[in-house]
């Protein structure tokens, strides 16, 4: 009764209806009337109902308006993200369901309040979060909130593998892996077209060549055609074959014989300035080979009506010969392809060249650049090393160097080479293992598989030659 009185007083007041003192008794009587009491109760009830309804709308609107951010997912990658109503400030949810979540391969786990699973489809997926809040009758329809869940495609699935055009005059095989004897050792070499080329059906630009030569010498060559040059695939092939051909020539074979004498003098420490003479020998013989290749490329460019730049390619090669005191390794390098050998017990690495790298990519040098020959650095591109023995001689294009060594500073570090050997031995994401043993019948297949390793951002052609 007291409530009713207060209610009526407030109602009248809000309508500027004042009750003078001499009417108090009348109001008292008014409030006793049964019909009036019923009306007042109904008013109170309706008011409460209206307010409850508003509160309900309000709490639904709260949920609808609060942004629901869920982490992006990726197809094939295990996913879990908190989706905790309480923490998101979504109060009083009495029932809920997700529509469209299951179709993505995900589900909601109530126990951990997480969306989890492995997504199977990609896209900006609109998921309906259907819910009811406290105060809604059982038969009331669900409220619907759209939640956008971004599911990225599996990056690996985005790469196409389009065959290169075999009718192209400069076509070469997309992937080659070879195992063969060389010198008194073996060579395992693979050259693979990068995913960036496979994606658009273009050609492998890397190349390699190796051979046993007359006079006890053997040679391994690796070249990396420039991505920006139109016919670099031909440039790299010509450079590799050109070098091998040069050292096969009779005059070269004869000229290389002189090295045997020099080495004898060097060993016996007789003769004057042997060190200097040897450096001179290397510079002369290898330098001539490089210059000849440069000239061949130049002539080819003229003949084909293209520029020398169109054939841009890096070039590294090592000549090796076994003597009674060990192996002689003569080398040359232009560009960003490293070559090195590891001593017998893999405790020491010896680099055979320095590599041309720029602060920002594209700082490399090519054998097609005339200025490399006139540069004062030209003489430093040659190397001579004598070693009693070695475990591995490795030569690689930047498609291997970039993902596996990353920076120049890593190359002199034997730890990095040990890691690299462990990687070859199976310590990698795919557990791809190459058993570097002459008796391994599956060596070609194993190596070919290993060469396909996945490395984000590294999809260039890859060439790796290992003499062991």
């Amino acid at each position, binding site marked *: 009764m007291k409530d009713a009185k207060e209610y009526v007083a407030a109602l009248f007041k809000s309508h500027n209806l004042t009750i003078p003192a001499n009417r108090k008794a009348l109001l008292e009587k008014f409030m006793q009337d049964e019909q009036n009491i019923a009306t007042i109760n109904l008013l109170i009830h309706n008011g409460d109902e209206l307010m409850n309804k508003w509160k309900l709308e309000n709490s639904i609107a709260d949920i609808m308006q609060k*942004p629901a*951010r869920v*982490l*992006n997912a*990726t197809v094939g990658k295990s996913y879990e993200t908190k989706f905790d109503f309480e923490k998101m400030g979504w109060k009083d949810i009495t029932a809920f369901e997700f529509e469209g979540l299951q179709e993505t391969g995900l589900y909601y786990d109530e126990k951990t309040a997480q969306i989890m699973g492995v997504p199977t489809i*990609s896209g*900006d997926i609109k998921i309906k979060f259907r819910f009811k809040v406290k105060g809604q009758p059982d038969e009331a329809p669900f409220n619907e909130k759209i939640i956008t869940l*971004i599911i*990225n*495609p599996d*990056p690996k699935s*985005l*790469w196409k593998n389009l065959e290169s055009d075999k009718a192209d005059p400069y076509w070469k095989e997309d992937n080659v892996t070879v195992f063969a004897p060389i010198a008194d050792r073996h060579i395992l070499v693979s050259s693979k077209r*990068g*995913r*960036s*080329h496979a*994606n658009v059906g273009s050609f492998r630009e890397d190349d390699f060549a190796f051979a046993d030569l007359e006079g006890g010498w053997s040679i391994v060559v690796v070249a990396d055609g*420039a*991505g*920006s040059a139109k016919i670099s695939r031909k440039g790299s092939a010509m450079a590799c074959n050109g070098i091998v051909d040069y050292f096969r020539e009779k005059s070269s074979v004869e000229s290389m014989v002189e090295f045997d004498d020099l080495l004898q003098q060097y060993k016996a420490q007789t003769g004057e300035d042997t060190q200097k003479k040897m450096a001179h020998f290397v510079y002369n013989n290898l330098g001539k080979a490089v210059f000849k290749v440069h000239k061949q490329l130049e002539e080819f460019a003229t003949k084909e009506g293209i520029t020398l730049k169109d054939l841009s390619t890096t070039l590294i090669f090592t000549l090796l010969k076994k003597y009674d005191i060990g192996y002689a390794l003569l080398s040359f390098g232009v560009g960003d392809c490293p070559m090195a050998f590891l001593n017998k017990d893999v405790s020491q690495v010896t680099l055979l060249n320095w590599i041309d790298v720029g*602060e*920002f*990519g*594209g700082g*490399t040098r090519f054998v097609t650049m005339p200025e490399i020959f006139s540069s004062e650095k030209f003489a430093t591109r040659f190397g001579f090393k004598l070693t009693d023995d070695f475990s591995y001689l490795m030569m690689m294009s*930047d498609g291997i160097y970039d993902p596996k060594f*990353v*920076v*120049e*500073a890593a190359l002199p570090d034997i730890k990095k080479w040990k890691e690299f050997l462990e990687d070859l031995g199976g310590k990698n994401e795919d557990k791809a293992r190459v058993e570097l043993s002459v008796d391994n019948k599956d060596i070609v297949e194993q190596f070919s598989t290993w060469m396909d390793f996945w490395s*984000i*951002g590294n*999809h*260039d052609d890859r060439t790796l030659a290992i003499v062991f």
Partner: protein
Amino acid sequence: MRRLPVYLLLDTSGSMTGEPIEAVKNGVQVMISSLRQNPQAIETAFISIITFDSTAKQIVPLTDLASFQMADIKATGTTNLGEGLKLVATCIDNEVAKTTAEQKGDWKPLVFIMTDGIPTDDWQSGLEEFKKRKTAFTVACAAGTAADSNLLKQITENVVSLDTADSQSIAKFFTWVSASIGVTSTKVEDGGKEVTGLGELPPPPSELNIVT
């Protein structure tokens, strides 16, 4: 892993209210979705959104495409382009890794600027700061007739203009930005070469006028 940083510097001043700001929001969404389909871009491109009105804010820090989520933007206030340019410079300092002997740094950043008006602040001092940073290229877009292409020309030689700042034109701009990021990420991944100017980017659609 060398990242390709991309900064979008977007005008969110009051004049962008309505259709333009909605078109920008939508443009960024569509751009991100389409770049996610590009195998090189999804691995390489990192996007940051910086807005400028009465103040400049980095509303999305440099984020890889796979985890990128667009933040809400509202049009309000004045056109403090100078402050925006200064903030881009600071963000480049903080977020873009430099090449050292021990690590390979990021690629030089790409910067796309879009504005529909005349700067209301001391934009030259912001420009001075911005110019000290190395970018692969900067493209500025004058959206609609109220923007001053000649002023933008002082920020970068690569200026495009839209006749009107309507949703269709803005959408076209973002489609082209998306294609440009795609091409650049392919170039850096494939050839190890950076794109340096407008000439190496895909030709802009007819809605985009190249300001010479």
